[in-house]
């Protein structure tokens, strides 16, 4: 029942968790509305989701423990059930909120979405909060109402934590290796492109990874047969623009060369 137990442990404070969860969700919505930093918004929504999920899981666990309220079904639910139900609620809420906004004719943007999900989350927290009853004893006092304190077992927490830390470090190392490899390999090629096409001129942009060049831009078929422009270099991967003269009509081929080489690297064609 480890996973179920984990679900129960996620609500150590009962009503306090409800209040804290509500505040976190409100804070997450505020951070989103204020366009706060990604790490803050991510952390806040993650905590809010955990609060809602644990509240749902604990509530499911409490209902199952009471059992007598149902004729069938709750009995024999597997240990992972509360966790699964909590996850279901989160996924369904994310999907349903989008459709509700669409149906209401509201744009699916960060403001409305943040408000709707925060409100839904707080509502779930309130609905699923532990309630005092004579049979239950103090709210949030134990994992299962009336079950009494579970026998304390020693578990190799430190051992598992040590292994898990190592595993997490390796996963992070995997990500670093993968991302670095992809970034190293994802170098954009040398490009030549037309951007601003005017009546007598056109801006051509030279792009390349990192520091590159010098390159030479030439035109062929324009005003004179061939025209060369001052060398261009690319610094820090920032594209460099050059303005090229155009005839009023006819075809012009703009080519990009390594300085001093006849064979063009790239070429664009403008036919007017």
């Amino acid at each position, binding site marked *: 029942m480890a996973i179920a137990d984990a679900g129960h442990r996620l609500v150590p404070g009962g009503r306090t968790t409800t209040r804290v969860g509500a505040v976190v969700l409100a804070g997450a919505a505020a951070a989103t509305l204020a366009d706060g930093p990604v790490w803050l918004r*991510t952390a806040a929504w993650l905590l809010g989701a955990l609060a809602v999920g644990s509240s749902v899981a604990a509530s499911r666990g409490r209902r199952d423990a009471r059992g007598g309220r149902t004729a069938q079904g709750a009995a024999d639910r597997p240990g992972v059930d509360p966790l699964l139900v909590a996850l279901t609620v989160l996924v369904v809420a994310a999907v349903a909120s989008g459709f509700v906004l669409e149906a209401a004719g509201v744009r699916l943007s960060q403001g409305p979405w943040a408000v709707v999900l925060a409100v839904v989350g707080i509502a779930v927290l309130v609905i699923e909060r532990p309630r005092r009853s004579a049979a239950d004893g103090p709210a949030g006092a134990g994992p299962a109402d009336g079950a009494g304190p579970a026998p304390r077992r020693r578990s190799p927490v430190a051992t598992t934590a040590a292994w898990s830390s190592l595993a997490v470090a390796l996963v992070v190392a995997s990500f670093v290796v993968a991302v670095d490899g992809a970034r190293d390999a994802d170098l954009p090629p040398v490009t030549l492109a037309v951007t601003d096409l005017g009546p007598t001129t056109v801006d051509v942009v030279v792009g390349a990874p990192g520091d590159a060049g010098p390159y030479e831009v030439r035109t062929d078929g324009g005003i004179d047969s061939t025209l060369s422009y001052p060398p261009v270099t690319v610094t820090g991967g920032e594209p460099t623009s050059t303005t090229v003269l155009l005839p009023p009509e006819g075809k012009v081929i703009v080519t990009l060369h390594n300085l001093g080489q006849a064979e063009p690297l790239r070429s664009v064609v403008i036919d007017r």
Partner: protein
Amino acid sequence: MSTTSDDVEAPAPATADDADGSAWSGPSTPASSMQRLVGIARNLMGTQAATAVLGLLFWTLATRQFLTSSVGIAGAAVSLMSLLASLGTLGLGTVLIARLPLTPQGERRVLVRTSLAVAGVVAAVLAVVVPLVLIHVVGAANLRPVAGSLGPAALFALGTALMAAAMVIDQAVLVVGTGGLQLERNIMASATKVVVLAGLGLLGAGGGMTIFAAWTVGTLVSLPWVAWRSRGGRALADPGPLVDPRALRGLARTALSHHALNTTLQAPLLILPLLVTSLVSAEANGVFTTVVQLTALVFALPFAISISLFAAADGRVETVVANMRRTIPFALVVSLGAYLAVFPLARLLLSVFGPEYADQGVEVLRLLTLAGVPFVVRDHYVALARASGRTTRATLVLAGFLPVELGAAAYGALRGGTDGLVLGWLLVLAVQAVLLAASMRRTVKSRPVLADTDTTTTTASITATPTTQEIALSTTTTAATTTATTTTTTTPTAAALDDSAPATTAAPRTARPVLGPVLVVMALGLLSMAIAARAGREQLTGALPISLWLAGLVLIVVPTAWAVLAPRTSRRDRLVLAVAVPLTLQLSRFVLHPLSFAFHDELIHATVLRQLLERGALFSENSLLPITGYYPGMEVATAAVTTLTGLSQHTAALVVLLAARLVLSLAILALVERITGSSRVAAVASVLYVLNPQYLFFNSQYSYQTFALPMAVLTVYLVLVRDRPAAGSERWAPVRAVALPLAALGTVVVSHHVTTGLLIVALAAWALVQRLRDGASPAGRREARALAGFSAAGVLGLAATVAVPGNTLGSYLGAIGESSAQQVDTLFGGGAAKPLFANSAGISSAPWEQVMIVVSVLVITAVTALALLRARTWWTRRTSVAILLALVALLWPLTPLGHLTRATSEVGDRAAGFSFVGVCDVVAWWLLRRRAHAAGPAEDGVVELGPASDPAAGARTSFGMGGVAALLTAGVVGMVLVGSVIFGAGPLAGQLPGPFRVSADARSVDPYNRAAAAWLDDNVPEGTRVYADRVGGLLTAAEGGTYTVRHISTSIDASRLLLDPDFTDQDVALIRRARIDYVIADRRDANGLPNQDVYVENGEFGGEERRDPVPLAALTKLDGVEGVDRVYDNGALAVYDVRGLRGDR
């Protein structure tokens, strides 16, 4: 929440060493000596395999992050350290194996610590002296970076001392339980050094001794770990001195004798490379040394058994003799099996190191592997000699053979090069084996043979002997095992390995803590895959990337499969691992393509996501595949994540996919546990599900089925466990009971049409089964009606989605059905089937891959058939949902049969995700079912499943599988996994990033076509109409925000624009009709046939009769067309502005 008898929810041990026994107190569980032997051998092999794989990872990482010269220095330092540390151990490790069981409890720690200290000091002295001599006397200037100055010299001495201590402790821990601690230490050390090396590399550290430092840190961390894990409880508190040289008094002779024997055993394999170098060539030795390293894995088994025989015997020759009767045949069979496996795979294995190794080393590897057989005899002889105190005699005998071995090898080398050397050596080994076997036979005959008795018997007999009272093996850490020790007396356990024996006769066993180590191994598997992907990106040739990829897969799945199947794994560990494997495999996609979407379907759905985020509304038209816009459940969830958190779309998609994976794993776990009543069967089912051929790629990509399938399984589960309010329940109870299942069903409905349809059918079938089985009872009829109601709700939901204006579901599915029917008709009419092992570009799977595919499909089919055959009695005994899953399993053959035609292969592949839900349930049940030994309902002896059982009948759910069977099954799982992945995703080489391939999905997504898409994103308005090839069109829509013209969305086939070499009026007409603004031409398409059937889309220009690649002229024809501008060029792709042809410019 159910609790089942088969789940070992063992009380946590008093100390962390739990299953391995407490600190140096010997085995804590009442396992037989044979069980211990198997356990030790298994762990030794595990250590060997783990260190080999992790060593490969370490060195691969080193080569990626450090200069070649630094790697060379580190390699030399590590080799020298290993040699000196081995010499420095002085045989103390082997002595401890023999001595610890005979040492009083209170003195064991001191003995171990003293041995470690002595080994460490001796090794440190050697590490200081030997390099100095080598540098200053011999003139080995190349060693200066290792020990030429104070800092590196101190580091080298420290590393060597620690390594010597580690070698001693690795042997000493074999007397504790089954040697799991040795495996743990090695995994811990290897994993730590990989992490440290990665960290040092990222910090920009350089130099060979930096690599050595990472190695040393790994060893350093692992030693306190062993101390902590074997610390024992308060009862074993050790107030004595830390080190006491008197503890080693009288052991010197024994230690040196063992040391001499160890050195003699290692000598041939150390000297043979020298012979190759001097008699053949240095180049040949390079190949030979590599082959020797490869065969080390084969030779490791007899060696592991030899050490295990010795360690498990606790100094009793009779036990060694008794166990040898089983270990010799077993080791011989395995060695021969290894030979048979290596023979066909020799070339592949060697190609990891480069083509020249494959060319020169094949025969050497095949011959050398044969040495495994005589090694079995030799190592058993050595074990017997050690146990009977005849190490000196054994040393002399083997030392006598040594010159003969080397002489024969030298003669062979002179006559036939390296092949001759190995052959000559083998002949002497064969003779040696015959003679040693005869000697062993005499020894065995002279000894009385004991029946294999369990440890408790041994304990009883030992403790009854006054001279060995101090052994006190019965002083175990837990009350449970102590009880077992005293109550289980002399029960013979000739069938000790038969774990199918009734649980009622088995003694209580503590759970084996496997979670941590398996998680680390799993993470290492992920790292291996990340390195493989990186190597693929760097276009590294050879088999290394594929091997790393394969190793990663195996590391992630196989240890978990074993742990989940093994009887001594705790319930908690099983459940966590059963969830961790699917999540790790999902992460493997991230390490493969960490920055962007790369696959065909992913880019289609990334387009839906982009449109949703940009327009803030649902149901936009996705020109790539219009139907996807009407089922945006997954994209809505992703948009919610990215909108709220600000994470990138790709990262948000990863979050959603991980959540979906988690839902699927938990839903399978919950569903199967609910059906079978066993969390063990459930965990096994969850792991078996990953054998679904589409699991690694298709079912984990950013696609609507990936999201909807988990929700569908979840729906079935929620329907199953929903509350059934009794009469008189509170007012809202009926609503609350159906709310959650309906919400999950609704999520499926808005996410994927086909999944919804299948879910509707499944719910209807479930209702029918329920009606047929339990229709006689009112409750049964009520349940059938409820199930039919859920099915009807699904129908209504699907109808609602179809009613959304513009939904094209009917025509979309109709086209697929028509195409499939047409191709099946052609096939039955005698038409050619789709090539089974080749794609449309003619790229075939390697022969070994084809074998793996066939084996995988056959195994899955056969096992499923057997399981279903056995499950035929479910009709009368199981709940209706169990029967439903069995029916779902019947769909599996659709997947392999679907591959007979192109159209049906896609349908069959998609079916795998669904059919495997049934397959994994039925097969997991079948694997672990156990014949009833309690008062269960009989006939076939299978006990009733879970909650459906009748407690009054005394039925008891019970499932089981022994440790050895678990190990073998995990091996089969690994084999099936590899075949399955190749079956589902094509040759391994194509699964990794690498050089551009024509129309090959992820392999076609490269910086060139992404740069073109990015340019369009920056320079043309959203929704601009573009025509491009298959991958270019996907990218420009997903990343460039354009409207890619496709036949499926416009009913216009404009493919002649890119595929017809002639520019005609038809081209102009097409551009006008489809209102195309830009055409993107990828000139690389002319380099080959498309890998995914088409350059652009089905039915394209010239597609039917295409035998040659599209002409380059077709891709450049717009260059000469009047009114067309080429506005972008990146060397591979050009973008043409064709608005002039429409008169729009």
